[in-house]
């Protein structure tokens, strides 16, 4: 499934150098677990986001492996250090091979 997937990320616009900021991410995705059955009793095949990564200027912040036990519209919240002005890059990897990306700029003032 690659329709209607929309990443949403909340990152502050500015931060002090070396400050720890909280990042909240959500992506709309049905996260079909592969356990459910349709009305005819056929198993609905698994279709989930299996990996999420967040980088800041190429340095890794967090790398998460997601399993079918993660809820629909996977939500993740974590904290990152901001050493300098730069760009956060968020990447979600779908089971079907699609990759969803989102970037957010942050200014150290």
């Amino acid at each position, binding site marked *: 499934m690659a329709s209607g997937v929309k990443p949403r990320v909340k990152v502050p616009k500015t931060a002090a150098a070396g400050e*720890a*900021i909280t990042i909240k991410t959500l992506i709309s995705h049905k996260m079909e*677990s592969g*356990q*459910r*059955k349709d009305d005819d009793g056929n198993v609905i095949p698994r279709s989930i986001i299996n990996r999420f990564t967040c*980088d*800041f200027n190429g*340095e*890794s*912040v*967090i*790398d*998460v*492996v*997601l*399993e*079918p*036990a*993660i*809820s*629909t519209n*996977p*939500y*993740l*919240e*974590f*904290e*990152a*250090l901001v*050493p300098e002005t730069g760009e956060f890059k968020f990447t979600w990897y779908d089971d079907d091979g699609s990759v969803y990306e989102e970037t957010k700029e942050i200014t150290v003032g």
Partner: protein
Amino acid sequence: MELTRRKAILLGAGAFLAAGLPFRASAALEDKIAEFTGGAEVGAGDIQLTAPEIAENGNTVPIEVSSDTADEIMVLALGNPTPSVATFKFGKLAASRTASTRIRLAGTQDVIAIAKLPDGSFVQATSTVKVTIGGCGG
């Protein structure tokens, strides 16, 4: 229907298989843990798992893992059809070893978080969540 000897044996074999199922589920769990820890012993210590005591809806149960030093944290739900939930790997720019997300739980069960510390040792924390409506559909 007459209970023949053949049927009795089949019944017995069926019952034996059914009884064996929980064992197989826990074997999968042990495999998962062994894969993560490499067979090392798992102690208690620098890991906290925050989960609600009662979750009304097993489809979205908010959980949070945190630790002071962990490099990696794996979350497992013991009562789910597949025990794995997520593995968090913290990079250089992670300000804290904290992450929260929402998970699915099939029913009332224990949730475990296992953390890999920088010295190569492993610690775990467990939390029991009561689930009113399971989150596995069908």
